[in-house]
């Protein structure tokens, strides 16, 4: 961790995570939630804020939000209030966002995550529901800024998409931990099936609040806020830049201003976006168009009972059930699709440990090379299981099996067919190998003499010769046994 580099200081980080939910329809109207459609196709009087239109809460969005809250060990509150958060901007058609304020959906949870083999716990302050803003595109002028642009366009397709905000307590001790926290939290949300958390599409965004204090101190320093990041790497980079900046300032006797910062990945520096004095007054007040949302505790229990297995629990189970190390179980068990694939391979008859090695090794490499998602590679779990079994029963050598795997991918072929067509089946038949062994022993009298003279390591030379003579197909273990028997005779 970064502790050593911060000599005498420790950072304190709190995070906010916004997640767009993959509901069929928007938070407060019946318009479809879509991606990539022509602008403003999915709009209605409600999400365009026409006069007289009223919001109605999307029940499925509440369910998804509650599932997130339960996964974060929060208490889902039986009574929920929506508030209006007032601000003028063209991406906000009502000029207020319907959000939650002092009576959010869920409070007081915690989330455990792993950093460098160490389990950390972060308290969750709250999970609340709101609606996403519309998308703005500014033409001309400085890229992405409204100021100086020639004109701006608004796409209301995204406006009103259900959005969940997860707010942590300031419990995160380092930029690396922040990145791990968010990655592992994202895995949980994906696992719940409530959002794909697609980062390129901005389905998930983060804000980080960061301050520094003398190491060991209990007091919190003045914090700054890093806004609206959607890449794990930038988040860590931004924190890595901001923490030393604060330390330097404090050591120089300066004060930290409470302000909102923008991180520029090109320069690697943070610059102020707005200060506390310029901070918005959102004039929150209870949304009078919505009645208090009563969440039935029995319904919450129903949700709890039907939660999918979450990554942390699955990692533990993989260690228990398959005898995997924590590291391997973490690689295989953190994401549902890969975990599912692995379990299919095992269920199809492959041994748990060899299957783990194959999935983490060749299979993941294939996915990375081909840019594919787990489960969508060019080999089925069932075929991979058969290949693993061919190795296990000695029909194919490990090295030949890697070749077979490559051909299976290339040709979408059955492992047995590849093995047979290419003549890659390992020769374990002793009668066939005995002849080769006898020939090699007979053809190398000098080495036989050396061996018999006590130079046991010469055995390697004989194995090599037999392998060569068999075209690499001989089972090295069997060859070794036969050679010893022949030489020791």
């Amino acid at each position: 961790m970064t502790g050593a580099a911060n000599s005498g200081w420790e950072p304190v980080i709190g995070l906010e995570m916004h997640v767009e939910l993959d509901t069929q329809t928007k938070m407060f109207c019946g318009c479809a939630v879509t991606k990539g459609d022509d602008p403003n196709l999915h709009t209605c009087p409600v999400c365009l804020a026409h006069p007289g239109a009223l919001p109605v809460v999307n029940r499925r969005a509440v369910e998804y939000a509650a599932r997130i809250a339960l996964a974060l060990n929060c208490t889902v509150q039986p009574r929920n209030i929506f508030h209006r958060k007032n601000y003028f901007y063209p991406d906000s058609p009502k000029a207020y966002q319907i959000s939650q304020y002092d009576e959010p959906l869920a409070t007081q949870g915690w989330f455990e995550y792993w950093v460098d083999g160490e389990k950390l716990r972060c308290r969750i302050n709250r999970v609340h529901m709101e609606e996403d803003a519309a998308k703005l595109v500014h033409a001309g002028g400085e890229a992405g800024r409204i100021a100086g642009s020639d004109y701006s366009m608004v796409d209301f397709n995204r406006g009103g998409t259900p959005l969940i905000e997860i707010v942590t307590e300031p419990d995160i001790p380092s930029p690396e931990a922040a990145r791990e926290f968010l990655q592992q939290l994202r895995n949980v949300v994906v696992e719940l099936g409530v959002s794909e958390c697609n980062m390129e599409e901005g389905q998930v965004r983060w804000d980080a609040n960061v301050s520094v204090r003398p190491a060991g101190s209990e007091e919190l320093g003045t914090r700054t806020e890093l806004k609206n990041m959607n890449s794990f790497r930038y988040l860590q980079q931004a924190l890595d830049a901001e923490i030393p900046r604060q330390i330097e300032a404090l050591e120089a006797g300066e004060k930290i201003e409470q302000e909102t910062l923008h991180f520029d990945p090109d320069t690697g520096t943070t610059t102020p976006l707005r200060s506390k004095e310029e901070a918005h007054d959102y004039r929150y007040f209870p949304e009078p168009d919505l009645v208090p949302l009563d969440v039935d505790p029995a319904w919450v229990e129903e949700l709890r009972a039907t939660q999918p297995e979450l990554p942390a629990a699955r990692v533990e189970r993989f260690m228990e059930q398959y005898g995997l190390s924590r590291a391997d179980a973490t690689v295989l068990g953190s994401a549902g699709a890969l975990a599912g694939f692995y379990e299919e391979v095992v269920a199809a008859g492959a041994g748990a440990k060899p299957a783990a090695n194959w999935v983490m090794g060749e299979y993941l490499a294939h996915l990375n090379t081909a840019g594919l998602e787990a489960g969508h590679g060019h080999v089925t779990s069932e075929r991979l299981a058969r290949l693993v079994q061919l190795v296990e029963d000695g029909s194919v050598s490990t090295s030949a099996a890697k070749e077979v795997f490559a051909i299976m991918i290339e040709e979408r072929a059955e492992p047995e067919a590849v093995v047979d067509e290419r003549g890659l089946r390992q020769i374990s038949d002793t009668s066939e190998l005995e002849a080769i062994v006898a020939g090699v022993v007979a053809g190398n009298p000098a080495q036989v003499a050396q061996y018999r003279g006590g130079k046991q390591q010469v055995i390697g030379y004989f194995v090599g010769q037999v392998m060569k003579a068999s075209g690499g197909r001989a089972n090295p273990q069997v060859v070794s046994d036969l050679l010893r028997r022949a030489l020791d005779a």
Partner: protein
Amino acid sequence: MTSLDPLRLTARQAKKLLVDGEISSAELTKVYLDQIETVEGKVRAYILVTADNAARYSTKVDREMQAMRGPLAGLPIAVKDNMVTEGVTTTCASKILANYQPVYTATAVRQVWEDHVVVLGKTNLDEFAMGSSTENSAFQVTANPWDLSTVPGGSSGGSAAAVAAGEALWALGSDTGGSIRQPASLCGIVGMKPTYGAVSRYGLIAFASSLDQIGPLTRSVYDCALLLQHLVGRDPRDSTSVELPEPIALPSAERLDGLRVGVPTEYLGVGIEPGVRARFDEALARIEDLGGSIVEISLPHTEYALPAYYIIAPAEASANLARFDGVRYGYRCADPEDLTDLYERTRGEGFGPEVKRRVMIGTYALSAGYYDAYYGRAQRVRTMVRRDFDRAFAEVDLIASPTSPTVAFKAGARTADPLAMYVCDICTIPANLAGLPAISIPCGLSDGLPVGFQLIGPAFSENRMLEAAHALEGAVGFDTAPSFKTSGPRPEAAGWTPGEITYRPEDAQS
């Protein structure tokens, strides 16, 4: 065809004539269009008269009467211009929506459309329903048909004046702090605000969401019940709407035996005009004549209701009206320099002074550091006002008061003094804060101008209230025909003329 008097004809009578085949819907509609032709120049109740549509649609109803036997089929109605009507310009009496063509229709309006009522047009109001005289309209000042130099009340002044002047058989209005009952009182007709949630607000251009309710303005209590029957119901598009525990019944009571009517002392200490007080006391005597009893009660937090209302309503309005930003529809200032300029000038030019005043009050009341002192405290007062009513209704069945402390006042008399205008609603606001149903019926004249008698009931006591109002109405025997006299000068409205409104009749109700 019988000769009909639009100043006295009730919907109940008109419906019977239609059903008996004595008159066609086209003929009935023409009675009102003719009356509009005759008196609208003096009254100016409508922002938009959809005469061609009304004529065409009433003919269609006649032709297809067999298929359109809806209980309201063929009865002409006027709609306050803060309810959106698809394809029919809806202005909210504001420059900022002067050319706004709604893309959908308000649930309450749609429900009566589906019963094949004939819509005569959209009536004038105080801009965004903010006012008590209809003088805050951006387009025109509506005159009170009882004295054309006086105001019709507000904000549903156009609907009230249209009914009183015989320019409509009945009308829809909305009531946030008295905006149906006070103009009904000043115009000598019946006006009712139902229990909050009884009528869908979907498509009602919001002023103060937690207070707004749509309701009827009619010439009789029976008509009020008849129209209300078709307005109420849970609407899945309005989360605050509810199903009534029992259907609205058509009233028939002639007696009030056993009815306990409470009179809150606090309501009589608010500067009630002697003439109003006299008619009110006479009405109380009629209630006793009919077998009811009068009980003096106390609603101790009444004096705080008005200030609380003038925090809560503007606070909600400041957010509700923020959507009028010139970006997506409605008025947009010319050649904005940048985003801030677009917002400032669009809203600066588009809103009138009273709307700006309330938006500023509301914004201030919600701002950081003031929220608890203003909005928070106002909400606590609201709770206390509600508890006052709860306690009172443990003792009495209904509560009675004058609807308005005064009869209709002269146009221009209060426009310079917002507080004098706000006091108009002192007797009506508490029912909105508590979400209770309340009705105003005429109970006589003072100096030739109508006096309104208000009954407030517990939540969902519409039927009890309508029965009582019906019996009292019979005992009072008020003649609804106004004189159209003029006792003084009529100031012209400043501002825009509705001539700039574009209207495409082909898009309207068909």
